[in-house]
């Protein structure tokens, strides 16, 4: 087991009065892929979004417990959310490139971080696109709108955009749920490649996908963490009956 990167301690989350997460405690190791599975509305996306404090944007939410990244509580009052998010990239369910050119999409992150040197920007853009294996497909149309790309390409572009700010952790919220099988396979390959350098947390509806890409799997049900462990074990010999029922497709 590698070093632990992200730890949550008794994390509870409320939308107004409604409890969405109930005292979740997990330890996620560095440079591994951790997958969250569970039926819709079980809190797995909410949990993912507590890790980079995206839930701060929603009014009337309340959070209890701690999220420690490298032993630092990210909900500490002294933590700057903007700087936190620079270290934690996020890829969304629906690919969301900006209505800008492909180049500008990738360069946006470095630019807001104060990099204005054109050569440096170009280098970052090219490296990011190469790392997401999309460079060959887009290198001739860097100045075209990113919205003209296919769904799979857009999603890889979004991952490249995330990489451009050089995060340590990448959160993925069902990154392949809107994609066809071939694009999905490409994203999965990419995740496999990226985990050499990044700690990855992925939410997925697709259990086969969790089984294929992840090292650890957490099963959520109704806001509670039911079971958490090595992916192989969760998918072959789960401890809990609920986990087994879900994985074998008996509910959810």
């Amino acid at each position: 087991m590698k070093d632990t990167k992200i730890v949550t301690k008794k994390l509870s989350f409320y939308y107004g009065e409604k409890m969405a997460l109930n005292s979740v405690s997990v330890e996620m190791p560095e440079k591994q892929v951790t997958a969250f599975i569970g039926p819709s509305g079980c809190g797995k996306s909410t949990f993912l979004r507590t890790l980079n404090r995206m839930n701060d944007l929603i009014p009337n939410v309340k959070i209890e417990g701690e999220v420690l990244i490298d032993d630092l509580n990210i909900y500490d009052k002294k933590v700057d959310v903007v700087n936190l998010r620079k270290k934690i990239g996020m890829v969304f369910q629906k690919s969301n490139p900006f209505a800008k050119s492909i180049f500008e999409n990738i360069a946006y992150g470095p630019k807001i971080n104060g990099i204005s040197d054109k050569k440096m920007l170009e280098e970052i853009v090219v490296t990011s696109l190469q790392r997401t294996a999309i460079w060959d497909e887009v290198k001739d149309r860097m100045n075209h709108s990113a919205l003209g790309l296919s769904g799979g390409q857009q999603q890889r572009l979004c991952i490249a955009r995330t990489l451009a700010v050089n995060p340590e952790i990448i959160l993925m919220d069902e990154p392949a749920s809107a994609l066809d099988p071939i694009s999905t396979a490409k994203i999965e390959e990419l995740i496999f490649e990226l985990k050499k350098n990044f700690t990855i947390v992925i939410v997925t509806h697709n259990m086969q996908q969790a089984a294929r890409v992840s090292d650890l799997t957490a099963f959520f049900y109704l806001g509670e963490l039911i079971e958490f462990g090595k992916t192989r074990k969760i998918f072959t010999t789960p401890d809990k009956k609920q986990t087994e029922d879900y994985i074998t497709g008996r509910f959810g």
Partner: protein
Amino acid sequence: MNQHGFTKESLRKKFRLSEYLSQRIITGVAFLSITIIVLIFFFVFKETIPVFQQPDKGSAIDSEELVQEQYGVFAESEEEDDRPEVYGMELDSALMGSRDYGADASTAEDERVTVSDLLGDQWYPVSSNPRYGLIPLFVGTIKITIISILFAAPIAILAALFSAAFAPTWMREWVKPAIELLAGFPSVVIGFFALMVMATVLQELFGYETRLNAFVGGIAMGLAAIPIIFTITEDALTAIPGTYKEASLALGATKWQTALFVTLPAATPGIFAAILLGIGRVFGETMIALMATGNAALISANPFESVRTLAATIGAEMAEVVFGDTHYGVLFLIGSLLFVFTFTLNALAEFYVKGRLMKRIQGKIS
């Protein structure tokens, strides 16, 4: 009664009276309003036509031929009764014609203005030597439009940005209707306020000579344009998918960076449309112009001099004009021009710009 199966009887076509009537009535009402607008359109243009029934240049023979033609048309029109009055203008036009063209004096025959008359730099429609140069009116209108948009657009766009991107929900629910309420503000009230209060305050502040001028009028009209620009910009900004905002914030951008570099650029076509509609509002605004601009038809770049706008000219002079004479026709010409301009602006805003915004969001253009 409830037999099973599909029979001819159970599927027989039924006539539903209420359905039929309501459909017809609604269609009728819709077409009625369209018809009314088209009729107004035609009326304004019809009244304009006589102004142009004389060619502005050409030999005497040509003119005569066309003069004949003009009479022909004229005889058909309902304004036959007004012909004596029209003839009355002949003298004045003759004077002007000889002044402008010299050799072309034969055009003195016509009682109508020429295009080059309209391009003159003097607007003295009621002098004994009337001049119908529209240029000062155009200059005035454009000057005041520029001033008011320069004043209104930044305020309205920043207010919209605040409302769409920064304001907490409760404040947004409060700010938006409040500003939109301003749109329903009678312009005569804004004009009155400008005339009585703003003019004095601004004069003390800037120390210019003429109390009522393009600057005061422009600011007052800006007040009228702000709600329009605000509302449409706000709509354009909130129409930008939240996923853009999330993506930007997740990259570690601040709220301000997100608003400025992501939301605002994505909404540019909508903001452009908002400004166009704002221009349209100012362009056609009559009451404020009439009350706060001084109404002197000057050609000058100085924003602190009085101006006379196209719309205010109609407002001020239409009531005193002789029905059917040249001045009357020229005022209708101004009306037509205003109509064409605002129509073009609105059409541009509606079809071209909004289409672009949609395409941009859907990713069909770069």
